[in-house]
């Protein structure tokens, strides 16, 4: 079974789906509500590590799948709480303050993962994780997990599409485009940001859980700013204000490098160890600069409220 599928391809596709998921969530935060979040790696990494520690280091009186579910829910909740806390921290700050607050949070998570080695395994890493089921060969297990993760990301996409069609999304856009005016209409922008960060950070934590299980091993190098910037590069290339922006953009960035170039372009073998991964980051960076300079709304362009409203309402 699954002979046609390369094991590395599964993990490549898994990575693409992860970044799409993160990009979709960043779209809600930065695209609609325009709250800077440069600490995506922190929320994602918190879910990753809380799950890893609970699953790998605690003696649970019950086995899988309950052990997985309990740990996954706890990790998601931890990230959600962290999101609430960070949103509170930055709620009355401008974009510079939000940058420092979110980046600071992510750095705290990274430093904890490195320094608290009794708990996290430090730089050596944390193992002892596995799939909450056993369907035979490792590749089959990984494939099932990839499908599950894809389903979760599809769920996130569905939620984002719903947000665009809901009064909640309208509130987020209003806060993002003109916060003082939204407040003068009686909208509590602080409350909107707190709920937004709680939900989206929880989702990021859940994606971290999925990552932990897929690779069964966690190191602090997993949770650096590079994952934040990969999500951001994809989202901005696709279109930061558009629901499908992250999907389209990540296909042209992460998928292009990690799938197409890795598997289908014949390049000298020695390039794959360092030259390509380094070039990948350089090109992501360049893409961010060029897109924001020359096509700031990305490939999909402006938010298309008129078309959307025409489709869901019949006021003329």
């Amino acid at each position, binding site marked *: 079974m699954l002979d046609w599928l390369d094991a590395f391809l599964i993990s490549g596709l898994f990575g693409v789906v992860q970044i799409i998921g993160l990009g979709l969530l960043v779209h809600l935060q930065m695209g609609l509500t325009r709250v800077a979040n440069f600490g995506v790696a922190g929320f994602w990494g918190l879910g990753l590590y809380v799950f890893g520690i609970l699953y790998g280091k605690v003696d649970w009186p019950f086995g899988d799948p309950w052990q997985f579910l309990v740990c996954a829910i706890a990790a998601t909740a931890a990230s959600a709480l962290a999101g609430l806390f960070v949103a509170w921290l930055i709620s009355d*700050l401008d974009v510079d303050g939000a940058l*420092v607050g979110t980046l600071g949070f992510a750095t*705290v998570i990274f*430093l904890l993962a490195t320094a608290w080695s009794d708990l996290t395994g430090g730089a050596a890493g944390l193992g002892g994780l596995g799939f909450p089921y056993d369907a035979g060969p490792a590749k089959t297990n990984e494939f099932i997990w990839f499908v599950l993760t894809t389903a979760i990301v599809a769920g996130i996409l569905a939620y984002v599409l719903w947000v665009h069609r809901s009064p909640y999304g309208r509130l987020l856009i209003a806060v993002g485009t003109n916060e003082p005016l939204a407040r003068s209409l009686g909208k509590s922008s602080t409350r909107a940001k707190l709920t937004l960060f709680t939900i989206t950070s929880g989702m990021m934590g859940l994606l971290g859980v999925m990552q932990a299980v897929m690779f069964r091993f966690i190191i602090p190098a997993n949770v650096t700013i590079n994952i934040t910037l990969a999500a951001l590069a994809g989202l901005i290339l696709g279109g930061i204000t558009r629901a499908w922006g992250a999907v389209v953009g990540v296909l042209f960035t992460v998928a292009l490098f990690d799938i197409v170039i890795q598997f289908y372009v014949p390049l000298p073998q020695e390039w794959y160890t360092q030259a390509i991964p380094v070039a990948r*980051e*350089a090109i992501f960076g360049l893409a961010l600069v060029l897109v*924001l*300079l020359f096509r700031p709304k990305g490939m999909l362009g402006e938010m298309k409220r008129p078309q959307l409203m025409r489709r869901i309402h019949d006021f003329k």
Partner: protein
Amino acid sequence: MKDTGRGVGVVGDDTPQETAPTPTSDAPGTASAPTADPAGRQRPAWAIPLLAAAVVAIGAFVSEFIAESLVIGATENAPLVLAALGFALLYRLNGLLNVAFTETVTLGGYFAIWITSTTGWGFAAAVIPAGILSGLLSVATYLLVFRPAKKRNVDGLELIVISFGLALFLRHALQFVFGFRARFFETPPPNTIDVLGVGVPSFRLLAVASVAVLSFAIYQFIRRTSYGLQIRALASNEGLAESSGVRPLNVTLLIWFVAGFAGGLAGAFFGVASAVTPLLGTRQLLLILLVVLVGGIWDLLGVVWVGAATGIALTAMTLWLGSDLWAQLILIVLFLGLLKTRGGRLTAGSKV
């Protein structure tokens, strides 16, 4: 991962501070206490001199701790102050939070290595040229990226993302020029100079001197020259300054050059203390940001003082806890707490 360029093991092989003293380690003077102690308990008359000896010992230990924290903290973290100063120039005078500034720091390190290895000069001779190259790089990023961005009215969130993108690009593109691996200076080991009983490598004193000279020069320049007047006019009210014809491109380019110069020096000093890696500057980003935001409550000199205080606190905590990671962690949490309590005033005040 985070410990290159800082921490406790970089003072020099022959100095006694190589291992971090903790409250339990032997300090001079306490060695005689264990033998005298039982006697002291039997004969109370001895207690007073013993107590005095203990006080002296603790005092010696504490003063040693303070001296070490001050000397190591101020000298080892002088590059941080330089980097924060450069960052603050752009932030306060050009209103730009430029994340890519950290790459002028990184490249300063690479430039210095390149100069020493191609010319055979010593480190001290390579510092200024490396700073100049970084300054030119900084000017180039302004002309190629940030000036076009301003002209296209890219602002706020998008401008910060652009600077993140530029940083990401430079940090990785440079590896195709200078190689993927960490690089080390092939200069002879530096002399160690005794400061308050703590051995300090000569290049660190050079770094401190650079901070002093550069911050004094920048301060004087901004306060006392006509260019400085224009810079201040530009910073306090861009529109007004522009309409009264103050904004010659030269003023802005000069700010970017000096900022890059300070960053390049910082990178060279960071690099000579351990190694030059692509992540050299990025690792300092958060500390720089925190120092600039908090120090910016006052003015540019505030950035220097807060930077120096941060360096000393970092070293003191590292010596005390025996781990630079926990020291950084505590410092970041403290700064974030400050950020919250000072609220919007902190960021608002930082831009002139």
